[in-house]
């Protein structure tokens, strides 16, 4: 039997190693946390802090004006409701539907499985911008295999519904596993399901359970960590996405679009300050808007953090 040699470190070596580890962690942590600290600090600065060169991180006068202006300009609560409708609900739908498709790909051998796997990878690889125009045209005149279009040609009646400007533009792709980054979630689930022992399912089959019951009763309860990973990615990506809502929606816009608009149009901020007769610094309000945008995500993440870390180590998927 091989002997394992333990090399004992001297006290000074331990100190140096610990020191290096802490320096690295503090440096890396600072780099990661810097934007957030900057946002937190700037959101509460006043106009007088803007002109005071001694104020860097800690405002001399903490004010809530920037946050109030941000909340009003973004129409925060209605935008948050819209985010729930077109962001969170599709995320939850994807969270469920992708598991079903992944189970099929992972466990069943059928004709066309390779093609479907390739399509799944294409969903990951092909950027959304490449497909946005044909997708928009398709959503504007929803049709299955051109049958309703044929009906229109024959009868002159256009039965093709338009799902742009409605949440269906987000729900339908999510239901059918072709939503925003669905390929990634299917891939995560597939890898996880492939790692589950087949004996679990075989035991269920022996007991008379069909594929669906096996999935619901055996697979789903076992996939906690992967499910949490997918849930977090899905929620974060859908919450932060502004490209698709911008294209599909012209009203009832989510928070991500309202925040993005501040990049080129600040008149909504101006109206708050005209109403209140105060001076303002546009940059501070935009930063405050970033802060209020992040708060729901931080709250969400704080609840699922533990399981997420466990999920990363189980699935081996990061970012």
């Amino acid at each position, binding site marked *: 039997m091989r002997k394992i040699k333990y090399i004992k470190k001297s006290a000074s070596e331990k100190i140096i190693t610990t020191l290096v580890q802490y320096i690295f962690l503090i440096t890396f942590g600072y780099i990661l946390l810097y934007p957030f600290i900057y946002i937190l600090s700037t959101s509460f600065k006043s106009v007088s802090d803007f002109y005071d060169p001694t104020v860097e991180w800690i405002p001399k006068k903490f004010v809530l004006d920037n946050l109030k202006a941000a909340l009003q300009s973004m129409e925060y609560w209605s935008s948050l409701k819209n985010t729930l409708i077109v962001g969170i609900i599709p995320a939850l739908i994807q969270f469920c539907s992708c598991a079903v498709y992944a189970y099929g790909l992972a466990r069943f051998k059928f004709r066309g499985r390779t093609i479907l796997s390739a399509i799944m990878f294409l969903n990951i690889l092909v950027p959304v911008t490449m497909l946005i125009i044909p997708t928009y045209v398709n959503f504007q005149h929803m049709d299955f295999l051109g049958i309703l279009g044929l009906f229109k040609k024959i009868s002159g009646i256009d039965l093709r519904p338009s799902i742009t400007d409605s949440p269906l533009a987000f729900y339908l792709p999510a239901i059918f596993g072709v939503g925003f980054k669905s390929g990634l979630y299917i891939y995560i689930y597939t890898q996880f399901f492939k790692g589950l022992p087949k004996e679990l399912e075989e035991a269920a089959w022996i007991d008379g359970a069909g594929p669906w019951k096996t999935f619901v009763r055996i697979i789903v309860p076992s996939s906690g960590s992967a499910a949490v990973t997918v849930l977090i990615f899905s929620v974060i990506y859908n919450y932060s996405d502004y490209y698709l809502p911008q294209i599909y929606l012209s009203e009832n816009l989510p928070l991500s679009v309202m925040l993005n608009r501040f*990049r*080129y149009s600040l008149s909504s901020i101006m109206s708050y300050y005209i109403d209140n007769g105060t001076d303002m610094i546009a940059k501070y309000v935009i930063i405050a808007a970033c802060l209020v945008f992040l708060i729901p995500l931080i709250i969400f993440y704080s609840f699922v953090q533990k399981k997420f870390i466990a999920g990363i180590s189980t699935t081996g998927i990061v970012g």
Partner: protein
Amino acid sequence: MKKISRFLCVILAIGITLSSTACSSKKTSSEPDDSTVVSSSEPVSSENETSSEAQSSQDKTVSSDNKSSAQQSTVAAKGSWQNVLKSMPKSLRGTTVEIFHWNPQSELPNGAQVITKFQQQTGIKVNWKVASYDNYDVELQARVAAGKSPDIVLFQWMNVNRVKLCQPVSAAGFDFNNSDWDSELMKYYTVKGKTYAVNMKNTLLNRPAAIFYNKTLIEKYDYEDPYTLWKQGKWTESKFMEMCKDFKRTVNGPAWCVSKYDVWALLTGLQSEISYKDGKYGNNLRDKRAIKAWQRCAELYQQGLIDRSWDSNGFEQGKYLFFDTSLMYTRTTQPYFSTLKSSGTLGVVPFFPVAGQSTQYQLMSEYEAYGFAKGAKNAKGAAFFLRYYLDPASYDANTFFCSEEAKAVYEYAMKQPNRIMHNRNPLGSGNSASPISEVRLALQEATPEQVPTVLNTYMSAVDAAVADLNKRLSDLP
């Protein structure tokens, strides 16, 4: 069971085959176009046009380019809005006009009230759709391909990708050739004799550039007020440079924050790297003035007189004496420089005349104009809307700008005979991956001695970009 499934397969196959024949749309001239509605007084000719990027086979346009029909129904009224309103066909009442903008209505001072008044006076409803600035062309293309075209499209500069999604303004059957309209600006939106975007002559909705200055610093360092100097006819390049050098000596920092690194090129009559004139793009890097202009910019930077970042916060904090940008930022709804505006310390003055130059160019940061999208359902109503929306009389100029000085400088700038239209991004908004961006970056980093080499290095890349742009222009009908 097997037979039923085979039967279903056959039915599905037939359905797919038939529907694929239904997908192809072969239009004849007699076929009505259901995506565009025009006034019944105008005959319609339909063309089968497909956007090269869009995959829809149902991209149809209607244009009333037939000259005689356009003359029959062209609204020829000019002068006051009331005059024009009298000529509006009654059939337009109750229709809707959709404007596709990247700013909300509130971006313009009293913008919402202007639109409400227009709706009340004409009975035409205005739908204001806010698009994303970065993806404006993509969204527009998607809408046009899907047959959901807006009526009015916004231009900041000649953008051939956007022009391709628009129809000539003559399609609206409205006379844009009278003296109300800015024919000089419209030339920059004219290709093969067809104009694609319009703006009015004395509109408040354009973007000439000027120099902003901090009055607090002027007083603090006991400089002469630039606006007063301008009014007295004493605002010169040497005066300006004297102030900049003195400021630099005093505070040991740049005096002038330039928003365009190529500002000197524009002041000497170059439309930046790529020109657009007489319906054609050109490569300005060959222009003899180019080397001198860009060397001048590089010299100023080397002397530490200019900073090339758009540091509006730094200017507001008193870091710079001068800041050049569009007069659009003097509007009361613009939050930039708000503390300077509210304290009355934001000064504005036109650019100085360049020493030794016989022609003084008025720089247009952007040359805003409006066009009609292909497939627009109500181009005629849109024309009436533009006539009202762009009319300076529709706004209260005193509450439009933050100060009397800003208003005076704006009016002066718009009346200048030699305007130079800045081609900020000929390839469209959000297109940073282009040789134009690369040459700009390289010129920013170059010393005056290196400028000729940089221009030579990028000559062929810009030539290729120009050839590509001209090819796209030639594809226009």
